[in-house]
């Protein structure tokens, strides 16, 4: 590992909301949290087949930070990509991507 791709300035992100980024042809959903962390998972929603995870609502389940698909409301752990609620389907996890902020620039690892 350790190709880090600079994606955008941290200031381009809204707190508690996601954006999509194209990293070497792969769509990554990036989320800036209230506590300053930036987390990345795949933007592709495996349940609907649409690239919409970045447009989901950020929240929590117990101690875990989550994102919910805007399509059919499946829930994933934003840190690990683990599917926490498959809304009646077979759970499918999301690939998680390492994210670092260096000098105010968000980098996605691959």
């Amino acid at each position, binding site marked *: 590992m350790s190709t880090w791709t600079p*994606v*955008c300035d941290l200031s*381009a*992100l*809204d*707190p*508690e*909301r996601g*954006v*999509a*980024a*194209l990293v070497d*042809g792969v*769509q990554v959903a*990036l989320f800036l949290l*209230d506590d300053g962390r930036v987390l990345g998972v795949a933007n*592709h929603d495996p349940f*609907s*087949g*649409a*690239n*919409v995870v970045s*447009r*989901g*609502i*950020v*929240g*929590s*389940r*117990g101690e875990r*930070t*989550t994102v*919910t698909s*805007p*399509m059919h*409301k499946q*829930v994933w752990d934003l840190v690990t990509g683990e599917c926490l609620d498959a809304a009646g389907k077979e759970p499918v996890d999301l690939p998680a991507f390492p994210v670092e902020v260096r000098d105010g620039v968000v980098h996605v690892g691959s």
Partner: protein
Amino acid sequence: MTVVSPVRPAVGPNDPGRVVVVGAGMVAHRVVEQMLARGEAAAWEITVLGDEPYLPYDRVHLSEFFDGRDADALAMGPSVWDDARVTLRTGDAVASIDRDAQEILTRAGVRVPYDNLVLATGSWAWTPRTTGIELPGVVSYRTLDDVTALRDWISAREQQLGRPLRGAVVGGGVLGLEAASALQRLGAHATVVEFADRLMSVQLDEGGGETLRVRIADMGVDVRLGTGATRLVAAPDGAVGLLVLSDGSTLDVDVVVFSTGIRPRDRLARESGLAIGERGGVVVGPTCRTSDPLVWAVGEVASYEGVCAGLVAPGNAQADVVVDQLLGGTSEYAPAPEGTKLKGVLHDGVPVEAASFGDVNALTPGALEVTFADPVAKTYKKLVVSDDARTLLGGVFVGDAALYSSLRPMLGRNLGADPSAFLAPEGGAAVPSADLPDDVVVCSCANVTAGTVRGAVTEHGCTSVADVKKCTKAGTVCGSCVPLLTKLVNTQLEASGVEVSHAMCEHFAMTRAELFALVRAEGLRTFTEVVAAHGTGRGCVVCKPVVASILSSLGVGHVLDRANAPLQDTNDHALANMQKDGTYSVIPRIPGGEITPEKLAVIADVAREYGLYTRITGAQRIGMFGARLEQLPQIWKRLVDAGMESGQAYGKSLRAVKSCVGQSWCRFGVQDSVGMGVQLELRYRGLRAPHKFKVGVSGCARECAEARGKDVGVIATERGWNVYVGGNGGFTPRHAELLAEDLDDGMLLRVIDRFLAYYIRSADRLQRTAPWVADYPGGIVELRKVLVDDTLGICADLEASIAEHVEGYEDEWAATLADPARLARFASFVNAPDTPDPDLAYTPERGQVRPARPGEASDPNPVIARTIAVRPSDVELEDAL
């Protein structure tokens, strides 16, 4: 000849086998419902035979037919007919019973064999032998066909005569008064002719009868007491024209309704040789068996101790007994003391209340009467108690029958307080409810006791009034016991320590309505404040949009505010409705469905340039589908520049106001429905609510806008507007119910303002108005008191909150286009803002595009996809290679 004979179930010695029910009314329905509920273990089949061509319907609410409840809407829980063990034959009367052969024969020649026969033929409307009773325009008031005939006669005769009709009702009992109210609602003047010296003479004492007379006269109905109908005389064209009364006077009439009592329909039983009571009816004992042990009788046709009951409650109790007996049980029928409540009589849309129970005339030796009469408020309340003033023997309530449902169950019991305390204007002593003894019947229609209600909570795990209704059927027939039921259930829940979870989600342990009240009272302005004060965690997909909606409804946090942005569903965040491939629909507001050619041309240009799939939506608007996130601002700029605005087709808010063309063009229209539709749409546009809501406006009673399928339905009348609420299409269709009648434009807006504001404050998350109205304690009747009579004194406040919304409205798209920060959200990729999602793919269909399915010929560019020819299939490609 046909024989209906389902495969004879393999019967055990105690199994009922083939059960045939003759008659398909409410009590027959109850028999089937109970068999399904209780007869799981036994072998049986049920065949129900009815002469009317309808599913068994709710006769108690027959007059709601005039509010548009048709046969389907009045049908009693029709799911019972879906069970494989149940057969329903309607529209074919039973001709005879052959008890030796154990089979019945219908008029159509169908033979149905039985192992057990249940007679539930009910009663028929008796009319005195009166000359001229066969004239056109003379009707009864008992069946759906009767009320249909009444409606049709009035509309045809009115057109013929070119003036409002003069109607008379012969009989001033409960049903006669209901018929008089129906005549009024159908636009006819009504005179009630009653032979006795008072209205509801069987149920009311003199004072109650007089108070009711005053209230009925206030409605504009003429009341003639102490006189009867002698004969009817035809008008020159042969229809009824004159009613001659026994006091020698006459009434000019165009329509006459006879409501002079009922008689048991016992012909079949008589002809088959079953024992018949002196005053008619099939004689039954406490097991409801007739003189033939294989034949049972229930409901109005059954004569128990010489009496045929005329109400649904004893019929249901008998149905329960028969089912228990059929299943090998030993329960017996014991007539419960019944009361009677006037229903379906409306004065300006408000029910006229009159009810009584027990010994209304204080005939019990030593009985005392405690009376409170208020001639100004036109109310009369009387309690009859034993000579020591402790035991309740009866009650009469006119003008305000609130005490009826709470005191009736106390009949024959110790009141526990000074009787006068109950009658004081302020309500005085707390009405007993929570401490009702277990054997007291709370819901007499479904024969459910307080103990059964408590048991539903403690034994069956019910945690809400709705659960208890479903479990026990209490409160599901006439609904008058619902307030009492609610108290009882809530008290029991508290007493049982059952933690009733009203939690919205793991972050908020309260309902949306409670949270709404807290946010409003404390003036909270952001999610952070709300979650800090009342919740835990970071929120979730459930509570964040709820808080966003509450803040928006309260006007403190616009859906576009930066602080609110993270709370919004993608739809409200993108101000567009997400489609299955992650693109969005674009639906500008088209109020009233009116659109100029210039605007149409702009829509056409935009759709063509962006390759959007275009269709007329179900809400009289034009939808364009397939717009990518990054295209939305450019597209909306074109639309906004052309004078269009957001239609909120994405919001939990007003969608559209559907209207018919109305008076301006339609030859039937009586009001300007398009104009009103536009006015309503502009008033409530952008108003955020617990769920989306829709409005309809029809310009006449033909109802072309299907307004009664909407959350708010407005229907024009000659005198103004009727407003209906709580309608729904969708998964659980429901007709809206009448909230208020004949309103002028201004009052119409005020009533709708109040309804919407009240709904927004108190509904649950994602609860449409239909279930909200249905679940409202006391239903539409109570809601009417709150929203029309302002009994809670909140109407001014409700109106003010809508006024604030109207004042603060701005077009969300225009505001977004003017704000660079907001526009930045509309990027496909943060590092490639204009690059389309490369996975999107389109395929042509009927000259437009739709998202391609896996493996289909497609193109990522919808404009190109629309024009490409279908490409060679993979097989052909391989061949070519």
